[in-house]
Protein backbone atom coordinates (compact mmCIF):
# COMPACT_ATOMS: atom_id res chain seq x y z
CA UNK A 1 0.00 0.00 0.00
CA UNK A 2 1.59 3.20 -1.12
CA UNK A 3 0.39 6.31 0.53
CA UNK A 4 0.58 9.86 -0.64
CA UNK A 5 0.78 11.86 2.52
CA UNK A 6 -1.24 15.03 2.65
CA UNK A 7 -1.17 17.68 5.31
CA UNK A 8 -4.34 18.39 7.31
CA UNK A 9 -4.69 21.67 5.44
CA UNK A 10 -4.56 19.86 2.11
CA UNK A 11 -7.21 17.42 3.28
CA UNK A 12 -9.42 20.28 4.43
CA UNK A 13 -8.91 22.01 1.08
CA UNK A 14 -9.66 18.81 -0.82
CA UNK A 15 -12.97 18.38 0.97
CA UNK A 16 -13.88 22.04 0.54
CA UNK A 17 -13.16 21.84 -3.16
CA UNK A 18 -15.12 18.66 -3.66
CA UNK A 19 -18.19 19.36 -1.53
CA UNK A 20 -18.12 23.14 -1.28
CA UNK A 21 -21.51 24.38 -0.15
CA UNK A 22 -22.48 21.10 1.50
CA UNK A 23 -19.82 21.56 4.14
CA UNK A 24 -20.25 23.49 7.32
CA UNK A 25 -17.35 24.60 9.39
CA UNK A 26 -13.97 23.06 8.52
CA UNK A 27 -11.25 23.38 11.16
CA UNK A 28 -7.72 22.12 11.41
CA UNK A 29 -6.42 21.67 14.95
CA UNK A 30 -3.04 20.87 16.36
CA UNK A 31 -2.04 19.85 19.84
CA UNK A 32 1.37 18.90 21.18
CA UNK A 33 2.65 17.17 24.29
CA UNK A 34 5.96 16.06 25.77
CA UNK A 35 9.27 17.89 25.81
CA UNK A 36 9.71 17.72 22.04
CA UNK A 37 6.13 18.89 21.44
CA UNK A 38 5.39 16.42 18.68
CA UNK A 39 2.26 17.77 16.97
CA UNK A 40 -0.92 15.70 16.95
CA UNK A 41 -3.11 16.84 14.09
CA UNK A 42 -6.83 16.69 13.49
CA UNK A 43 -9.32 17.93 10.93
CA UNK A 44 -12.93 18.60 11.88
CA UNK A 45 -15.42 18.73 9.05
CA UNK A 46 -19.13 19.43 9.46
CA UNK A 47 -20.91 17.90 6.52
CA UNK A 48 -24.54 17.67 5.44
CA UNK A 49 -26.28 14.31 5.39
CA UNK A 50 -26.71 14.39 1.61
CA UNK A 51 -23.02 14.22 0.86
CA UNK A 52 -21.92 12.44 4.03
CA UNK A 53 -21.47 9.08 2.41
CA UNK A 54 -19.55 10.58 -0.50
CA UNK A 55 -17.34 12.31 2.04
CA UNK A 56 -16.58 8.94 3.65
CA UNK A 57 -15.76 7.51 0.22
CA UNK A 58 -13.56 10.50 -0.45
CA UNK A 59 -11.69 9.79 2.78
CA UNK A 60 -11.31 6.11 1.84
CA UNK A 61 -9.72 7.26 -1.42
CA UNK A 62 -7.23 9.37 0.51
CA UNK A 63 -6.33 6.52 2.88
CA UNK A 64 -8.46 3.66 4.24
CA UNK A 65 -9.43 5.04 7.64
CA UNK A 66 -9.61 3.36 11.00
CA UNK A 67 -13.01 4.22 12.42
CA UNK A 68 -12.38 4.97 16.09
CA UNK A 69 -16.00 5.34 17.07
CA UNK A 70 -19.15 7.25 16.21
CA UNK A 71 -20.07 9.79 18.88
CA UNK A 72 -23.39 11.50 19.14
CA UNK A 73 -24.62 14.62 20.85
CA UNK A 74 -28.10 15.95 21.46
CA UNK A 75 -27.88 19.60 20.48
CA UNK A 76 -31.48 20.55 21.20
CA UNK A 77 -33.06 20.87 17.76
CA UNK A 78 -30.77 18.38 16.17
CA UNK A 79 -28.70 15.32 16.93
CA UNK A 80 -25.13 15.51 15.76
CA UNK A 81 -23.22 12.37 14.88
CA UNK A 82 -19.44 12.50 14.81
CA UNK A 83 -17.45 9.89 12.93
CA UNK A 84 -13.92 9.85 14.35
CA UNK A 85 -11.64 8.37 11.71
CA UNK A 86 -7.86 8.09 11.65
CA UNK A 87 -5.72 8.05 8.55
CA UNK A 88 -1.98 7.70 7.99
CA UNK A 89 -1.41 5.60 11.10
CA UNK A 90 1.69 3.43 11.11
CA UNK A 91 3.91 6.43 10.35
CA UNK A 92 5.48 8.16 13.31
CA UNK A 93 3.50 11.24 14.28
CA UNK A 94 1.85 11.37 10.86
CA UNK A 95 -1.59 10.26 11.87
CA UNK A 96 -4.47 12.64 11.20
CA UNK A 97 -7.73 12.35 13.06
CA UNK A 98 -10.49 13.29 10.62
CA UNK A 99 -13.84 13.83 12.28
CA UNK A 100 -16.89 14.04 10.05
CA UNK A 101 -19.75 15.61 11.95
CA UNK A 102 -23.25 15.20 10.54
CA UNK A 103 -26.14 17.19 12.03
CA UNK A 104 -29.53 15.50 11.79
CA UNK A 105 -32.74 17.46 12.45
CA UNK A 106 -34.87 15.84 15.13
CA UNK A 107 -37.81 15.73 12.71
CA UNK A 108 -35.89 13.36 10.44
CA UNK A 109 -33.26 11.34 12.22
CA UNK A 110 -32.04 9.17 9.38
CA UNK A 111 -28.51 8.57 8.21
CA UNK A 112 -27.19 6.12 5.62
CA UNK A 113 -25.08 3.24 6.91
CA UNK A 114 -21.38 3.22 6.16
CA UNK A 115 -21.01 -0.47 6.96
CA UNK A 116 -20.79 -1.28 3.24
CA UNK A 117 -17.60 0.79 3.14
CA UNK A 118 -16.29 0.05 6.63
CA UNK A 119 -17.80 -3.27 7.84
CA UNK A 120 -16.74 -2.71 11.43
CA UNK A 121 -18.98 0.35 11.69
CA UNK A 122 -22.09 -1.76 12.32
CA UNK A 123 -21.21 -2.11 15.97
CA UNK A 124 -21.09 1.62 16.61
CA UNK A 125 -24.10 2.29 14.37
CA UNK A 126 -26.19 -0.15 16.41
CA UNK A 127 -25.18 1.68 19.56
CA UNK A 128 -26.17 5.06 18.11
CA UNK A 129 -29.59 3.72 17.13
CA UNK A 130 -30.47 2.61 20.64
CA UNK A 131 -28.78 5.46 22.51
CA UNK A 132 -29.90 8.39 20.35
CA UNK A 133 -32.98 7.10 18.60
CA UNK A 134 -31.62 7.74 15.13
CA UNK A 135 -32.33 5.45 12.23
CA UNK A 136 -29.40 4.06 10.29
CA UNK A 137 -30.81 3.32 6.85
CA UNK A 138 -29.84 -0.09 5.39
CA UNK A 139 -27.98 -1.21 8.53
CA UNK A 140 -27.33 -4.96 8.13
CA UNK A 141 -28.08 -5.68 11.78
CA UNK A 142 -30.50 -3.38 13.55
CA UNK A 143 -30.82 -5.23 16.86
CA UNK A 144 -30.06 -3.50 20.10
CA UNK A 145 -26.50 -3.74 21.29
CA UNK A 146 -26.03 -2.73 24.91
CA UNK A 147 -29.52 -2.03 26.20
CA UNK A 148 -31.28 -4.94 27.88
CA UNK A 149 -34.31 -6.51 26.19
CA UNK A 150 -36.67 -5.19 28.87
CA UNK A 151 -35.55 -1.58 28.38
CA UNK A 152 -38.58 0.52 27.35
CA UNK A 153 -39.03 1.44 23.68
CA UNK A 154 -38.67 5.08 22.65
CA UNK A 155 -36.39 5.96 25.53
CA UNK A 156 -32.94 6.97 24.36
CA UNK A 157 -30.36 7.39 27.15
CA UNK A 158 -28.22 10.04 25.46
CA UNK A 159 -31.10 12.31 24.49
CA UNK A 160 -31.68 15.39 26.57
CA UNK A 161 -35.31 15.97 25.60
CA UNK A 162 -38.50 14.16 26.62
CA UNK A 163 -37.26 10.92 25.03
CA UNK A 164 -34.26 10.77 27.40
CA UNK A 165 -34.07 8.80 30.63
CA UNK A 166 -37.14 9.61 32.70
CA UNK A 167 -36.89 10.76 36.32
CA UNK A 168 -38.59 7.59 37.55
CA UNK A 169 -35.96 5.39 35.87
CA UNK A 170 -33.12 6.85 37.91
CA UNK A 171 -32.09 4.95 40.98
CA UNK A 172 -29.86 7.06 43.19
CA UNK A 173 -27.60 4.71 45.07
CA UNK A 174 -26.87 7.22 47.79
CA UNK A 175 -30.56 7.65 48.49
CA UNK A 176 -30.83 3.99 49.44
CA UNK A 177 -28.83 4.68 52.60
CA UNK A 178 -26.97 2.20 54.74
CA UNK A 179 -28.60 -1.20 54.98
CA UNK A 180 -30.26 -1.88 58.32
CA UNK A 181 -30.26 -5.12 60.27
CA UNK A 182 -26.55 -5.71 59.75
CA UNK A 183 -24.12 -6.32 62.60
CA UNK A 184 -22.26 -3.21 63.66
CA UNK A 185 -18.80 -2.80 62.13
CA UNK A 186 -16.18 -4.25 64.50
CA UNK A 187 -14.18 -1.05 64.95
CA UNK A 188 -16.08 1.88 66.39
CA UNK A 189 -14.08 4.86 64.99
CA UNK A 190 -14.32 3.46 61.47
CA UNK A 191 -18.06 3.67 61.54
CA UNK A 192 -17.89 7.40 62.14
CA UNK A 193 -15.68 7.81 59.12
CA UNK A 194 -18.05 5.86 56.94
CA UNK A 195 -20.98 7.98 58.04
CA UNK A 196 -19.15 11.06 56.93
CA UNK A 197 -18.40 9.52 53.60
CA UNK A 198 -21.93 8.48 52.85
CA UNK A 199 -23.12 11.90 53.89
CA UNK A 200 -20.83 13.67 51.44
CA UNK A 201 -21.62 11.11 48.75
CA UNK A 202 -25.24 11.97 49.24
CA UNK A 203 -24.61 15.55 48.37
CA UNK A 204 -22.48 14.98 45.32
CA UNK A 205 -25.12 15.06 42.59
CA UNK A 206 -26.40 18.46 43.67
CA UNK A 207 -23.30 20.09 45.02
CA UNK A 208 -20.93 19.95 42.15
CA UNK A 209 -19.00 22.90 43.42
CA UNK A 210 -15.30 23.19 44.18
CA UNK A 211 -15.45 22.76 47.95
CA UNK A 212 -15.83 19.05 47.52
CA UNK A 213 -13.10 18.01 45.08
CA UNK A 214 -10.64 19.93 47.19
CA UNK A 215 -10.61 17.15 49.74
CA UNK A 216 -8.79 14.38 47.85
CA UNK A 217 -5.38 16.08 47.48
CA UNK A 218 -5.29 16.96 51.15
CA UNK A 219 -5.74 13.39 52.28
CA UNK A 220 -3.13 11.45 50.27
CA UNK A 221 -0.27 13.85 50.82
CA UNK A 222 0.53 13.12 54.45
CA UNK A 223 0.34 9.41 53.61
CA UNK A 224 2.96 9.82 50.95
CA UNK A 225 5.35 11.41 53.40
CA UNK A 226 4.95 8.45 55.69
CA UNK A 227 5.74 6.06 52.87
CA UNK A 228 8.91 7.85 52.00
CA UNK A 229 10.21 7.66 55.51
Amino acid at each position, binding site marked *: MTRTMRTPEEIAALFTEKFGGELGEVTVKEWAEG*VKKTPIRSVWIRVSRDVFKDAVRCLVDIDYP*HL*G*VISGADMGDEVELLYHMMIYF*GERGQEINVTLAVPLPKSDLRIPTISDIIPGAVYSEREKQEMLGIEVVDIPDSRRLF*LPPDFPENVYP*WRKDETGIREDMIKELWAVGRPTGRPAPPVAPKEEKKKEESATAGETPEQTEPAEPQKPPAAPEPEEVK*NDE
Partner: protein
Amino acid sequence: MSENKKIGSTYSIPIGPVHPALKEPILFTFKMNGELVEEVDFAPGECHRGIEWMGMRRNPVQIVHLTDRICGICGVSHSLAFARAVEQIAEIEVPERAHYVRTIIAEYERLQSHLLWAGVAAHELGFDTLFFLAWRVREESMDVIEYLTGNRVNYGIVQVGGVRRDFTEDQFPRIEASLKYYEDVAGKLLNLFLEDRTIQMRCKNTGVMSEKEALELCTVGPTARASGLAMDVRYDSPYAAYGDLDFTPVLPHQYLGLTNGDVYDRIVVRLLEVVQSVDLIRQCLENMPSGEVLWEKKYPKILAACKKATGEAVGRIEAPRGECLHYVRMDGNTNPQCWKVKASTYSNQMSWLNMLKGEQIADIPIVVASIDPCMSCTDRVAVVHGERTDILTKADLHRLSVEKTRRLAQWS
Protein backbone atom coordinates in the same frame (compact mmCIF):
# COMPACT_ATOMS: atom_id res chain seq x y z
CA MET B 1 -26.39 -27.26 5.87
CA SER B 2 -28.78 -29.67 4.20
CA GLU B 3 -26.03 -32.24 3.69
CA ASN B 4 -25.56 -32.56 7.38
CA LYS B 5 -29.20 -33.18 8.22
CA LYS B 6 -28.44 -36.80 9.03
CA ILE B 7 -26.11 -36.00 11.87
CA GLY B 8 -28.52 -33.56 13.38
CA SER B 9 -27.54 -30.61 11.13
CA THR B 10 -26.45 -27.45 12.91
CA TYR B 11 -27.27 -26.62 16.46
CA SER B 12 -26.66 -23.51 18.47
CA ILE B 13 -24.75 -23.05 21.69
CA PRO B 14 -25.29 -19.95 23.76
CA ILE B 15 -22.25 -19.14 25.86
CA GLY B 16 -22.50 -16.60 28.60
CA PRO B 17 -23.59 -14.00 29.57
CA VAL B 18 -20.65 -14.70 31.84
CA HIS B 19 -17.78 -16.07 29.89
CA PRO B 20 -14.22 -17.25 30.40
CA ALA B 21 -11.61 -14.64 29.60
CA LEU B 22 -13.81 -11.58 29.64
CA LYS B 23 -13.97 -8.75 32.07
CA GLU B 24 -17.48 -8.03 30.97
CA PRO B 25 -20.22 -10.57 30.79
CA ILE B 26 -21.29 -11.20 27.21
CA LEU B 27 -23.60 -13.64 25.53
CA PHE B 28 -22.31 -15.68 22.62
CA THR B 29 -24.44 -17.81 20.36
CA PHE B 30 -22.54 -20.32 18.29
CA LYS B 31 -24.11 -22.16 15.43
CA MET B 32 -22.27 -25.45 15.44
CA ASN B 33 -21.80 -28.07 12.81
CA GLY B 34 -20.51 -31.01 14.76
CA GLU B 35 -17.40 -29.74 16.48
CA LEU B 36 -16.95 -26.80 14.16
CA VAL B 37 -18.19 -23.26 14.66
CA GLU B 38 -20.24 -22.22 11.67
CA GLU B 39 -21.56 -18.86 12.74
CA VAL B 40 -21.00 -16.59 15.69
CA ASP B 41 -23.16 -13.94 17.21
CA PHE B 42 -22.69 -12.01 20.41
CA ALA B 43 -24.68 -9.66 22.57
CA PRO B 44 -22.76 -7.41 24.93
CA GLY B 45 -24.32 -5.04 27.40
CA GLU B 46 -24.72 -7.28 30.40
CA CYS B 47 -22.85 -4.79 32.49
CA HIS B 48 -23.57 -1.52 30.75
CA ARG B 49 -23.60 0.93 33.63
CA GLY B 50 -24.55 4.10 31.79
CA ILE B 51 -21.30 5.79 32.74
CA GLU B 52 -21.60 8.31 29.90
CA TRP B 53 -25.03 9.29 31.16
CA MET B 54 -23.65 9.73 34.66
CA GLY B 55 -20.71 11.72 33.31
CA MET B 56 -22.89 14.21 31.47
CA ARG B 57 -24.33 15.11 34.88
CA ARG B 58 -20.98 15.69 36.58
CA ASN B 59 -18.12 18.14 36.20
CA PRO B 60 -14.77 17.20 34.62
CA VAL B 61 -12.90 16.94 37.92
CA GLN B 62 -15.49 14.48 39.17
CA ILE B 63 -15.51 12.58 35.87
CA VAL B 64 -11.77 11.95 36.06
CA HIS B 65 -12.40 9.82 39.12
CA LEU B 66 -15.39 8.19 37.48
CA THR B 67 -13.22 7.22 34.51
CA ASP B 68 -10.81 5.51 36.89
CA ARG B 69 -13.58 3.06 37.60
CA ILE B 70 -14.61 2.26 34.04
CA CYS B 71 -12.23 -0.67 33.95
CA GLY B 72 -10.54 -2.57 36.75
CA ILE B 73 -7.39 -3.18 34.74
CA CYS B 74 -7.05 -0.02 32.66
CA GLY B 75 -6.91 2.16 35.75
CA VAL B 76 -5.09 4.99 34.05
CA SER B 77 -6.06 4.65 30.38
CA HIS B 78 -9.55 6.09 30.61
CA SER B 79 -8.68 8.88 33.02
CA LEU B 80 -5.71 9.84 30.84
CA ALA B 81 -7.76 9.86 27.65
CA PHE B 82 -10.49 11.92 29.29
CA ALA B 83 -8.06 14.36 30.89
CA ARG B 84 -6.32 14.85 27.54
CA ALA B 85 -9.60 15.68 25.83
CA VAL B 86 -10.53 18.25 28.48
CA GLU B 87 -7.03 19.76 28.42
CA GLN B 88 -7.34 20.30 24.69
CA ILE B 89 -10.69 22.03 25.05
CA ALA B 90 -9.61 24.28 27.91
CA GLU B 91 -6.11 24.68 26.43
CA ILE B 92 -4.48 23.66 29.65
CA GLU B 93 -0.77 23.09 29.29
CA VAL B 94 0.33 20.05 31.25
CA PRO B 95 3.79 20.38 32.86
CA GLU B 96 6.48 18.34 31.12
CA ARG B 97 7.24 16.24 34.16
CA ALA B 98 3.59 15.22 34.40
CA HIS B 99 3.78 13.81 30.86
CA TYR B 100 6.59 11.55 32.01
CA VAL B 101 4.78 10.47 35.15
CA ARG B 102 1.75 9.65 33.01
CA THR B 103 3.89 7.64 30.61
CA ILE B 104 5.56 5.64 33.37
CA ILE B 105 2.30 4.67 35.02
CA ALA B 106 0.71 3.88 31.65
CA GLU B 107 3.57 1.53 30.82
CA TYR B 108 3.35 -0.18 34.20
CA GLU B 109 -0.29 -0.69 33.47
CA ARG B 110 0.61 -2.30 30.17
CA LEU B 111 3.08 -4.58 31.94
CA GLN B 112 0.56 -5.84 34.44
CA SER B 113 -2.25 -6.10 31.91
CA HIS B 114 -0.24 -8.09 29.37
CA LEU B 115 1.14 -10.43 32.01
CA LEU B 116 -2.31 -10.94 33.44
CA TRP B 117 -3.49 -11.81 29.95
CA ALA B 118 -0.55 -14.16 29.38
CA GLY B 119 -1.52 -16.04 32.52
CA VAL B 120 -5.14 -16.28 31.42
CA ALA B 121 -4.08 -17.55 28.00
CA ALA B 122 -1.92 -20.25 29.60
CA HIS B 123 -4.81 -21.25 31.84
CA GLU B 124 -7.21 -21.50 28.90
CA LEU B 125 -4.79 -23.92 27.29
CA GLY B 126 -4.60 -26.01 30.43
CA PHE B 127 -1.02 -24.96 31.18
CA ASP B 128 -1.60 -23.95 34.77
CA THR B 129 1.99 -23.89 35.99
CA LEU B 130 2.66 -21.19 33.43
CA PHE B 131 -0.48 -19.38 34.52
CA PHE B 132 0.82 -19.24 38.09
CA LEU B 133 4.25 -18.16 36.94
CA ALA B 134 2.89 -15.35 34.76
CA TRP B 135 0.75 -14.04 37.57
CA ARG B 136 3.59 -14.21 40.06
CA VAL B 137 5.71 -12.19 37.66
CA ARG B 138 2.84 -9.74 37.20
CA GLU B 139 2.69 -9.14 40.94
CA GLU B 140 5.95 -7.19 40.77
CA SER B 141 4.36 -4.50 38.61
CA MET B 142 1.33 -4.38 40.88
CA ASP B 143 3.65 -3.83 43.83
CA VAL B 144 5.39 -0.97 42.06
CA ILE B 145 2.07 0.58 41.04
CA GLU B 146 0.96 0.40 44.66
CA TYR B 147 4.27 1.86 45.79
CA LEU B 148 4.00 4.75 43.36
CA THR B 149 0.31 5.60 43.50
CA GLY B 150 -0.88 4.07 46.75
CA ASN B 151 -3.33 1.73 45.03
CA ARG B 152 -3.18 -1.56 43.19
CA VAL B 153 -6.20 -0.66 41.08
CA ASN B 154 -8.06 2.64 40.56
CA TYR B 155 -4.83 4.58 40.94
CA GLY B 156 -6.50 7.98 40.97
CA ILE B 157 -3.29 9.58 39.76
CA VAL B 158 -4.41 11.52 36.69
CA GLN B 159 -5.98 14.93 37.11
CA VAL B 160 -7.06 17.41 34.48
CA GLY B 161 -3.89 19.43 33.97
CA GLY B 162 -1.38 16.87 35.16
CA VAL B 163 -1.05 14.21 37.81
CA ARG B 164 -1.89 14.22 41.49
CA ARG B 165 1.37 12.70 42.71
CA ASP B 166 4.93 13.10 41.59
CA PHE B 167 7.34 10.19 41.25
CA THR B 168 10.35 11.42 43.19
CA GLU B 169 14.01 10.56 42.69
CA ASP B 170 14.14 8.49 45.87
CA GLN B 171 11.48 6.21 44.38
CA PHE B 172 13.57 5.49 41.29
CA PRO B 173 15.67 2.68 42.84
CA ARG B 174 12.49 0.67 43.48
CA ILE B 175 11.35 1.27 39.89
CA GLU B 176 14.80 0.36 38.59
CA ALA B 177 14.78 -2.86 40.65
CA SER B 178 11.51 -3.91 39.06
CA LEU B 179 12.81 -3.13 35.57
CA LYS B 180 15.85 -5.29 36.27
CA TYR B 181 13.55 -8.05 37.49
CA TYR B 182 11.53 -7.94 34.27
CA GLU B 183 14.64 -7.92 32.12
CA ASP B 184 15.88 -11.01 33.92
CA VAL B 185 12.62 -12.86 33.63
CA ALA B 186 11.71 -11.79 30.07
CA GLY B 187 13.89 -14.39 28.37
CA LYS B 188 12.39 -17.13 30.48
CA LEU B 189 8.84 -16.02 29.72
CA LEU B 190 9.48 -15.76 25.99
CA ASN B 191 11.03 -19.18 26.02
CA LEU B 192 8.22 -20.78 28.00
CA PHE B 193 5.43 -19.23 25.98
CA LEU B 194 6.84 -19.28 22.50
CA GLU B 195 9.05 -22.34 22.35
CA ASP B 196 6.64 -24.69 24.08
CA ARG B 197 5.42 -27.29 21.60
CA THR B 198 1.95 -27.63 23.08
CA ILE B 199 1.33 -23.89 22.98
CA GLN B 200 2.53 -23.80 19.40
CA MET B 201 0.18 -26.62 18.43
CA ARG B 202 -2.81 -25.02 20.09
CA CYS B 203 -2.18 -21.44 19.01
CA LYS B 204 -0.61 -21.51 15.58
CA ASN B 205 -3.19 -21.13 12.83
CA THR B 206 -5.97 -20.79 15.39
CA GLY B 207 -8.28 -17.79 15.31
CA VAL B 208 -6.66 -16.26 12.24
CA MET B 209 -7.41 -12.70 11.17
CA SER B 210 -5.84 -11.13 8.09
CA GLU B 211 -4.49 -7.61 7.96
CA LYS B 212 -7.32 -6.53 5.67
CA GLU B 213 -9.93 -7.87 8.07
CA ALA B 214 -8.19 -6.20 10.96
CA LEU B 215 -8.40 -2.88 9.16
CA GLU B 216 -11.97 -3.23 7.94
CA LEU B 217 -13.31 -4.43 11.27
CA CYS B 218 -11.76 -1.41 13.00
CA THR B 219 -9.65 -3.51 15.38
CA VAL B 220 -7.06 -1.84 17.57
CA GLY B 221 -4.04 -2.52 19.72
CA PRO B 222 -2.22 -5.85 19.98
CA THR B 223 -5.09 -7.58 18.18
CA ALA B 224 -4.57 -5.39 15.10
CA ARG B 225 -0.77 -5.45 15.36
CA ALA B 226 -0.73 -9.26 15.57
CA SER B 227 -2.38 -9.27 12.14
CA GLY B 228 0.39 -7.05 10.82
CA LEU B 229 -1.49 -3.77 10.98
CA ALA B 230 1.01 -1.18 12.20
CA MET B 231 -1.20 0.86 14.45
CA ASP B 232 -0.17 2.21 17.81
CA VAL B 233 -1.50 5.49 19.12
CA ARG B 234 1.73 5.99 21.07
CA TYR B 235 3.61 6.02 17.79
CA ASP B 236 1.07 7.49 15.37
CA SER B 237 -0.14 10.39 17.50
CA PRO B 238 2.51 10.67 20.21
CA TYR B 239 0.79 11.90 23.36
CA ALA B 240 2.37 12.43 26.81
CA ALA B 241 6.09 11.67 26.63
CA TYR B 242 5.92 9.12 23.80
CA GLY B 243 7.04 11.68 21.24
CA ASP B 244 10.36 11.93 23.09
CA LEU B 245 10.98 8.21 23.35
CA ASP B 246 12.66 5.92 20.89
CA PHE B 247 10.53 2.93 19.89
CA THR B 248 8.54 1.39 17.05
CA PRO B 249 5.28 -0.57 17.20
CA VAL B 250 5.72 -4.27 17.95
CA LEU B 251 4.74 -6.45 15.02
CA PRO B 252 4.95 -10.25 14.92
CA HIS B 253 7.23 -10.38 11.89
CA GLN B 254 9.96 -8.66 13.88
CA TYR B 255 10.23 -11.82 15.96
CA LEU B 256 8.94 -14.54 13.67
CA GLY B 257 9.94 -13.23 10.25
CA LEU B 258 6.35 -13.44 9.04
CA THR B 259 2.84 -12.56 10.14
CA ASN B 260 0.09 -15.15 10.47
CA GLY B 261 -2.42 -13.16 12.46
CA ASP B 262 -3.21 -16.13 14.68
CA VAL B 263 -3.43 -16.55 18.45
CA TYR B 264 0.27 -17.33 18.60
CA ASP B 265 1.10 -13.96 17.01
CA ARG B 266 -1.05 -12.25 19.61
CA ILE B 267 1.03 -13.90 22.33
CA VAL B 268 4.21 -12.78 20.57
CA VAL B 269 3.05 -9.17 20.31
CA ARG B 270 1.97 -8.91 23.94
CA LEU B 271 5.11 -10.52 25.33
CA LEU B 272 7.36 -8.33 23.21
CA GLU B 273 5.42 -5.31 24.40
CA VAL B 274 6.26 -6.31 27.95
CA VAL B 275 9.93 -6.10 26.99
CA GLN B 276 9.27 -2.80 25.20
CA SER B 277 7.48 -1.30 28.20
CA VAL B 278 10.51 -1.95 30.40
CA ASP B 279 12.64 -0.07 27.91
CA LEU B 280 10.18 2.82 27.66
CA ILE B 281 10.00 3.23 31.44
CA ARG B 282 13.78 3.30 31.62
CA GLN B 283 13.95 5.97 28.91
CA CYS B 284 11.43 8.02 30.90
CA LEU B 285 13.47 7.75 34.09
CA GLU B 286 16.62 8.84 32.28
CA ASN B 287 15.06 11.85 30.58
CA MET B 288 12.63 12.97 33.23
CA PRO B 289 12.44 16.77 33.32
CA SER B 290 12.11 18.52 36.65
CA GLY B 291 9.33 20.83 37.72
CA GLU B 292 5.72 20.79 38.71
CA VAL B 293 3.37 17.93 37.92
CA LEU B 294 0.08 19.76 38.02
CA TRP B 295 -0.94 22.79 36.00
CA GLU B 296 -2.82 24.26 38.94
CA LYS B 297 -2.75 23.00 42.50
CA LYS B 298 -6.09 24.51 43.46
CA TYR B 299 -8.86 22.30 42.15
CA PRO B 300 -11.49 25.04 42.07
CA LYS B 301 -9.26 26.84 39.57
CA ILE B 302 -9.03 23.74 37.37
CA LEU B 303 -12.77 23.47 37.56
CA ALA B 304 -13.23 27.15 36.74
CA ALA B 305 -11.01 26.74 33.66
CA CYS B 306 -13.09 23.77 32.50
CA LYS B 307 -16.29 25.69 33.12
CA LYS B 308 -15.19 28.58 30.94
CA ALA B 309 -14.06 26.34 28.10
CA THR B 310 -16.14 25.74 25.05
CA GLY B 311 -15.33 23.39 22.24
CA GLU B 312 -14.83 19.76 21.47
CA ALA B 313 -11.86 17.42 21.46
CA VAL B 314 -10.87 13.80 21.18
CA GLY B 315 -8.47 12.29 23.70
CA ARG B 316 -6.91 9.12 22.39
CA ILE B 317 -4.36 6.94 24.08
CA GLU B 318 -3.00 3.45 23.60
CA ALA B 319 -4.42 1.34 26.43
CA PRO B 320 -2.93 -2.14 26.95
CA ARG B 321 -5.65 -3.58 24.71
CA GLY B 322 -5.57 -0.84 22.11
CA GLU B 323 -6.91 2.57 21.32
CA CYS B 324 -9.00 4.18 24.03
CA LEU B 325 -10.93 7.19 22.76
CA HIS B 326 -12.85 9.83 24.67
CA TYR B 327 -14.83 12.49 22.89
CA VAL B 328 -15.79 15.47 25.05
CA ARG B 329 -17.76 18.57 24.17
CA MET B 330 -18.00 21.47 26.60
CA ASP B 331 -20.48 24.29 26.06
CA GLY B 332 -19.66 26.66 28.89
CA ASN B 333 -21.54 24.73 31.54
CA THR B 334 -20.01 22.84 34.44
CA ASN B 335 -20.94 19.50 32.96
CA PRO B 336 -19.88 18.31 29.52
CA GLN B 337 -22.50 18.63 26.86
CA CYS B 338 -21.42 15.33 25.37
CA TRP B 339 -19.08 12.58 26.47
CA LYS B 340 -18.42 9.40 24.55
CA VAL B 341 -16.15 6.66 25.82
CA LYS B 342 -14.72 4.10 23.48
CA ALA B 343 -12.77 1.33 25.16
CA SER B 344 -10.44 -0.88 23.16
CA THR B 345 -12.54 -4.01 23.44
CA TYR B 346 -15.41 -2.09 21.85
CA SER B 347 -13.38 -2.01 18.64
CA ASN B 348 -12.02 -5.51 18.89
CA GLN B 349 -15.20 -7.46 19.50
CA MET B 350 -16.26 -7.51 15.86
CA SER B 351 -13.15 -9.52 15.03
CA TRP B 352 -14.50 -12.54 16.93
CA LEU B 353 -17.06 -13.11 14.22
CA ASN B 354 -14.38 -14.03 11.70
CA MET B 355 -11.80 -15.48 14.07
CA LEU B 356 -14.10 -18.07 15.54
CA LYS B 357 -15.53 -19.35 12.26
CA GLY B 358 -14.33 -22.86 11.54
CA GLU B 359 -12.75 -23.35 14.95
CA GLN B 360 -13.60 -26.17 17.35
CA ILE B 361 -15.56 -25.81 20.59
CA ALA B 362 -12.38 -26.55 22.51
CA ASP B 363 -10.67 -23.59 20.85
CA ILE B 364 -13.36 -21.10 21.79
CA PRO B 365 -11.83 -20.14 25.16
CA ILE B 366 -8.38 -19.35 23.80
CA VAL B 367 -9.63 -17.55 20.69
CA VAL B 368 -12.02 -15.43 22.71
CA ALA B 369 -9.29 -14.74 25.24
CA SER B 370 -6.82 -13.85 22.51
CA ILE B 371 -8.24 -10.38 21.94
CA ASP B 372 -8.87 -9.39 25.52
CA PRO B 373 -6.77 -10.02 28.57
CA CYS B 374 -9.39 -10.08 31.27
CA MET B 375 -10.25 -12.84 33.62
CA SER B 376 -13.73 -13.97 34.39
CA CYS B 377 -15.56 -17.26 34.44
CA THR B 378 -18.31 -18.75 32.38
CA ASP B 379 -20.99 -19.66 34.74
CA ARG B 380 -22.75 -21.84 32.26
CA VAL B 381 -22.89 -22.94 28.69
CA ALA B 382 -26.13 -24.43 27.50
CA VAL B 383 -25.93 -26.70 24.49
CA VAL B 384 -29.27 -26.74 22.75
CA HIS B 385 -29.28 -29.85 20.62
CA GLY B 386 -32.66 -30.78 19.25
CA GLU B 387 -34.93 -31.14 22.21
CA ARG B 388 -32.19 -31.91 24.68
CA THR B 389 -30.43 -29.16 26.53
CA ASP B 390 -27.09 -29.89 28.09
CA ILE B 391 -25.55 -27.41 30.43
CA LEU B 392 -21.82 -27.18 30.11
CA THR B 393 -20.22 -25.42 33.04
CA LYS B 394 -17.06 -23.35 32.83
CA ALA B 395 -15.28 -26.40 34.21
CA ASP B 396 -16.61 -28.55 31.37
CA LEU B 397 -15.52 -26.09 28.73
CA HIS B 398 -12.14 -25.77 30.32
CA ARG B 399 -11.89 -29.56 30.51
CA LEU B 400 -12.61 -29.80 26.76
CA SER B 401 -9.79 -27.39 26.10
CA VAL B 402 -7.38 -29.29 28.36
CA GLU B 403 -8.35 -32.59 26.75
CA LYS B 404 -7.58 -31.19 23.32
CA THR B 405 -4.15 -30.15 24.52
CA ARG B 406 -3.56 -33.67 25.87
CA ARG B 407 -4.74 -35.27 22.63
CA LEU B 408 -2.42 -33.12 20.58
CA ALA B 409 0.45 -33.89 22.92
CA GLN B 410 -0.11 -37.63 22.48
CA TRP B 411 -0.25 -37.52 18.72
CA SER B 412 2.90 -35.59 18.22
